[in-house]
């Protein structure tokens, strides 16, 4: 095999074969769902690389956690306790309201809304390609994560799970150009679709007519129409409305509620599964 002038002729057929094969994979992966399972196994295969790449950052995190001063821990604990107290008092009313809501919906003959199961996931410090907005989280198939699952942070919807592997999964953020989410305006139930623009701090709403009642500062919550995201979680706030009459639709931009550029802990949601009452 170690000839002086080797394989000059055999390279071109190989290249053509590889390129044709790649294009077939590309089309199949992009157009259909048949590659899902293959991709899952392949992702599982490469996930050790992600864990290795994540290790230095995780180690630094661990070191900084181990060497926190006692004073700082005490003050933080105090602050957390107060925050917790405030939140649980807010929740007291929530329970009341939920009970009332269920009763009202029952008297209307509508189905009751169920809270789903939740799980906390941590962002893995793994770099991405510059063209997409995705993050990798440390939960995967073994935790029951599925493709298309909604992901939240403390302020609102972050995105949805795009690819799953055994122990990690990849989340497509709201800000990605390929991401769209059906929403409604909390104030007046106006339906719209929020799309990503590729910028982490700006989303856009297309096809809003000039007569539509939309104001700067309106809160957009998920409408549940796409069946992926459960109803009622905050998505974005209207930031700017350009009502110049030259275009058929109004140009609306919105800022995401979730802090997309400083994610650390995320919450995975299982909207279908009913939660047993009283369990957090």
């Amino acid at each position: 095999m170690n000839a002086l002038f080797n394989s000059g002729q055999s390279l071109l057929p190989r290249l053509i074969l590889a390129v044709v094969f790649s294009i077939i994979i590309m089309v199949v992966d992009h157009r259909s769902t048949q590659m899902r399972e293959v991709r899952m196994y392949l992702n599982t295969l490469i996930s050790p690389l992600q864990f290795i790449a994540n290790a230095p950052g995780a180690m630094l995190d661990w070191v900084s956690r181990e060497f926190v001063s006692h004073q700082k821990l005490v003050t933080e604990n105090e602050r957390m306790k107060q925050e917790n107290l405030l939140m649980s008092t807010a929740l007291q009313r929530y329970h009341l309201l939920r009970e009332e809501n269920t009763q009202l919906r029952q008297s209307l003959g509508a189905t009751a809304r169920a809270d789903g199961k939740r799980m906390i996931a941590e962002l893995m410090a793994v770099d991405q390609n510059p063209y997409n907005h995705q993050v990798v989280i440390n939960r995967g198939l073994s935790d029951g994560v599925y493709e298309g699952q909604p992901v939240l942070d403390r302020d609102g919807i972050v995105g949805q799970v795009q690819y799953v592997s055994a122990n990690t999964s990849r989340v497509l953020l709201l800000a990605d150009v390929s991401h769209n989410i059906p929403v409604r305006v909390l104030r007046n139930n106006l339906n719209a679709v929020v799309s990503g623009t590729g910028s982490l701090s700006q989303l856009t709403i297309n096809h809003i007519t000039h007569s539509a009642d939309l104001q700067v500062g309106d809160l957009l919550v998920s409408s549940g129409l796409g069946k992926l995201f459960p109803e009622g979680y905050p998505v974005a706030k209207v930031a700017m409305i350009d009502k110049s009459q030259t275009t058929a639709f109004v140009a609306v931009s919105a800022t995401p509620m979730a802090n997309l550029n400083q994610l650390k802990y995320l919450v995975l949601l299982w909207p279908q599964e009913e939660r047993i009452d009283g369990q957090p």
Partner: protein
Amino acid sequence: MMSFLFNRFAISLTLVLAFVLQIIPLPVEFDVFRPDWVLLTLSYWVLAVPHRVNIGVAFICGLGLDLVLGTTLGIHSVATCIVVFILATNYQRLRNYPIWQQSFVVGLLSAFYHLLVFWLQHMISDIYFLFHYLAPTIANVITWFYVFYFLRKVRRTSGVR
């Protein structure tokens, strides 16, 4: 035993290392200048041992890149295969270039690689070209010197032929 393993799997080990470097987190300011470690490592091995590392390895590495970077499968494999093809058909000439000239050729090819990846991505989703997509090219030109000397050392100590 260890040295036997090292000699046997030197190429694979350096590629795995390149993959880790490719996805290891960097501060945001430097992130756009991240060199294409996998492409550089592949380029070195293609120039050094073209009968062992060529289109097949490039294809597998390309698929690996698609997986770790989260792009549609096949995008990076097309780009790496084409770049490796160009290197493999011209390896005798490129090997005799002085290293700074090699680094320019590799830089140019990596710019071509990024344009290919961008173009394929653009066909799939409507992203727009930003000039900083080509920023890794500059880093590649500089990093080639280090990659070249490091991998040459690896090749000589492990006796990869």
